[in-house]
């Protein structure tokens, strides 16, 4: 994952110069493309069980959403007076995305173990917490825009039914 080292080096120069180098957008596009390809891989690779593939997909998708948010901030940094804050925010976030991408790259050829998935889940939570602190986490509206709301509600209802069955089986409230 040399690309991360290159981007981080570039960001450090930008931070020192207090100026955004527009070429960063192209670098981020490269990372976004990497994530998109990986997402596609987890969707189509039927050899990996759905629940495991989903976790890999979920981590990749979140990394991509955060990178997209970062890219938008770089694009609008001039007009939004977000410079050099966006640079220091990106320096905080990118190592956490690199951690996730390294895990995702390493497991593509291997058996996916519960330990790796649990490790990945913790890394993802850390990334989302960091992204939330520096306003790089997509809002609910951004997340659900373009999705079929009817299907979203139907899938959520399934989870609710599952939780109800699990937690409320015998308690006979009121």
């Amino acid at each position, binding site marked *: 994952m040399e690309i991360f080292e290159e981007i981080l080096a570039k960001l450090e120069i930008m931070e020192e110069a207090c100026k955004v180098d527009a070429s960063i957008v192209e670098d981020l596009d490269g990372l976004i493309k990497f994530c998109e390809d990986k997402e596609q891989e987890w969707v189509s690779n039927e050899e990996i069980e759905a629940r495991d593939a989903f*976790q890999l997909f979920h981590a990749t998708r979140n990394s991509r959403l955060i990178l997209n948010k970062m890219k938008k901030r770089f694009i609008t940094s001039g007009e939004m007076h977000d410079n050099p804050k966006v640079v220091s925010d990106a320096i905080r976030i990118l190592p956490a995305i690199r951690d996730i991408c390294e895990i995702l790259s390493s497991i593509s050829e291997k058996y996916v173990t519960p330990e790796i998935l649990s490790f990945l889940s913790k890394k993802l939570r850390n990334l989302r917490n960091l992204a939330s602190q520096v306003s790089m986490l997509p809002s609910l509206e951004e997340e*659900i825009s373009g999705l079929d709301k009817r299907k*979203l509600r139907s*899938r959520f209802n399934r989870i609710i039914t599952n939780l109800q069955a699990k937690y409320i089986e*015998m*308690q*006979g*409230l009121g």
Partner: protein
Amino acid sequence: MVDTNVLIAASTYMFSRDLSIELKHKFFDQAMSLIGLLKKHLAKRIGITTPTIEDEAYYNLEEAVREEVDKITDRKVDFVLFSTILNSCENRLKEVLSYLLREPVDQHQVNQNYLKVANMYEALTRKARALPTPKKYATIRKKSVSPGLRTAAFDAFLITHKNRNAQLFHLLSKPVEESDKIILAEAIYLFNLYKQTYGKGVTFLISSMDHHFSPIRKSGFESRPVTDAILNNFGIMCDWPYQVEQTLKSYLK
């Protein structure tokens, strides 16, 4: 202290509102109502959680989604939908957790408490095993009733025995999990710490919908041998969100 399941119920309730879905079971309302009360009295710092509870809540939320993912047929569509749901529920869970005080715990002391907790559940499980089955109990007891009433008496004895001991029978059908024992051990540690800090008048409650903590109330019966054992051994009161909310309100008057 707010248990994992209450946190999950409140966060899923909040997301259901985002999607304009009305949840039918009143438990979700009651979990949310308790969280609302804790939020209202945030400055009093009466709602607490621990790192174990937080980790469990995130894990259980993920697991609930994964269990549904196991059943999907169209990965392309469903992965995005379930990923969105998981993110949104986790965001809400994070918000709920922000209304609670996250207490650090001393692992050494928690480990010592864990042994006491494990012994208590072991003793309760032995007690549960020694109980006659409801059918056996009713068969013996009906003999003390006049012959004409035995059929009705059998049913009454069966239901009474089953419901009164429901919490013990539950221990056999669903043994207590390690995480539950750790959470109770952490609660004992915090309760002892609070007593040392704030004096012996401190009351410690656990709000949970887990029968390994809270009573089972069904068909007019209440089964609470496990809840009572926790109260008698450790001085901690466990109950459902609604009951805990009512207790808290009486203290906050």
